[in-house]
């Protein structure tokens, strides 16, 4: 392949391997091309001066930390997206609009409740309002049950106060113990009205007293 001085720039720009070889051959006999070729290659040699691949051992650990933090944030966002995946895919504009609408509704509702609250609805001086309706029902049922047992106790009282037999004397002792336990439990239940365990124990004591009194009355009939 023969090349001339006029081919030099084209070869410098986009020459094939064969053309470069031909230019080298031509430069052996052409002083201008030889000088240009040397200068061209020298630029590539000079470019090596800009190569500095010294490693900084602290650089990767720093970058690894940054990558790990970003990965953790990404995973957190993915978890949040899963939580809200039941929502339709909405653009940021729609999400903002919905959030705004929700805030307005919440503000209006709060305002309405505040304005329409009962003037006598204040509960500061009425501790009974702290009790739920269910608790009130239990307490009223207990009172009725207690009165019924008191009636039963009144009927059995003569036998218990003057026991004719050792069995009745034992029943008397038992009723006294039960009354004492009932008083204790009622005092505790008064301090903690919502304690279901105390109420359960109190009910068991009343039932025991009821059975005892029934046995006393049965013993009288016999």
């Amino acid at each position, binding site marked *: 392949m023969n090349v001339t001085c006029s081919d030099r*720039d084209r070869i*410098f*720009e*986009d*020459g*094939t*391997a064969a*053309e*470069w070889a031909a230019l080298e051959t031509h430069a052996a006999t052409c002083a201008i091309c030889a000088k240009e070729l*040397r*200068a*061209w*290659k*020298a*630029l*590539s*040699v*000079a*470019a*090596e*001066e*800009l*190569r*500095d*691949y*010294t*490693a*900084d051992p602290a*650089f*990767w650990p*720093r*970058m*690894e930390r*940054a*990558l*790990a933090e*970003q*990965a953790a944030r*990404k995973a957190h966002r993915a978890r949040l997206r899963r939580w809200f995946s039941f929502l339709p895919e909405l653009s940021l504009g729609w999400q903002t609009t919905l959030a705004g609408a929700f805030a307005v509704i919440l503000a209006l509702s709060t305002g309405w409740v505040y304005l329409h609250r009962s003037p006598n609805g204040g509960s500061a001086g009425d501790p009974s309002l702290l009790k739920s309706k269910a608790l009130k029902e239990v307490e009223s049922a207990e009172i009725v049950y207690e009165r019924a047992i008191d009636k039963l106790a009144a009927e059995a009282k003569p036998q218990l106060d003057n026991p004719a037999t050792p069995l009745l004397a034992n029943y008397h002792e038992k009723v006294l113990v039960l009354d004492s336990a009932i008083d204790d439990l009622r005092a505790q239940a008064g301090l903690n009205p919502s304690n279901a365990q105390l109420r359960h124990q109190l009910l068991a004591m009343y039932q025991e007293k009821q059975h005892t009194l029934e046995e006393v009355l049965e013993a009288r009939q016999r």
Partner: protein
Amino acid sequence: MGAMGLALPWKARISSAPRERGTRVEPSEHFGGGANPAAADATSEDAALAAACRSGDLRAYERLYAMHGAKMKNLARNVLGNSNDAEDAVQETFLKVQRSIASFRGQSSFVTWTYRILMNTCYDARRSRLRKKEITNDDSAETPRLEPRAPGAHPALRMALERALASLTRHQRDVFLLYEVEGFRHAEIAGMLEITEAASKNTLFQAKKNLRLMLEPPRPGRGAAEIR
């Protein structure tokens, strides 16, 4: 232009013996400038690296860093002019890769894509620096601030080259750095800078012509108008 009148006897000081990279002719160069493994191996390794990064494996990023970190930092330093900005750019590049790996469709190689992100990150950093300097009314905004580096074989030549590079257009400088300093092929540079391969070759040609004019001792009757 500051480097125009620089009379540097550089041709006398460096060997003009042709080195392998000195007469690079497409497609004889291998990407990366190291050993020349089979192209198929490189492609499959590139795909495996991309897949591992996509799966979120931090070791894959470490491998990417081990393979290209030093070269990326060197490129960023040559574009931005100092090591701190270069490290920031490389770190930001890795974070961007991690953030957007799901959008990588494989139109180019993964490594080329990574370098494209690096170049864009460097441009952003330069623009940001330019804005800051405009606020502080500093006229030397566009020219990278050159910091001292580890002494090479020809420190005066390096400094002259850095100054001359700063006078080139952005594209000429980037193509010169990618091709001559980092050893990429024109096909790869085209992918990184989103230009054609022919444009990359032509830009390199213009860059080297301009550098020659700037680095050669001034000749009578030659002016700045010759530099394109």
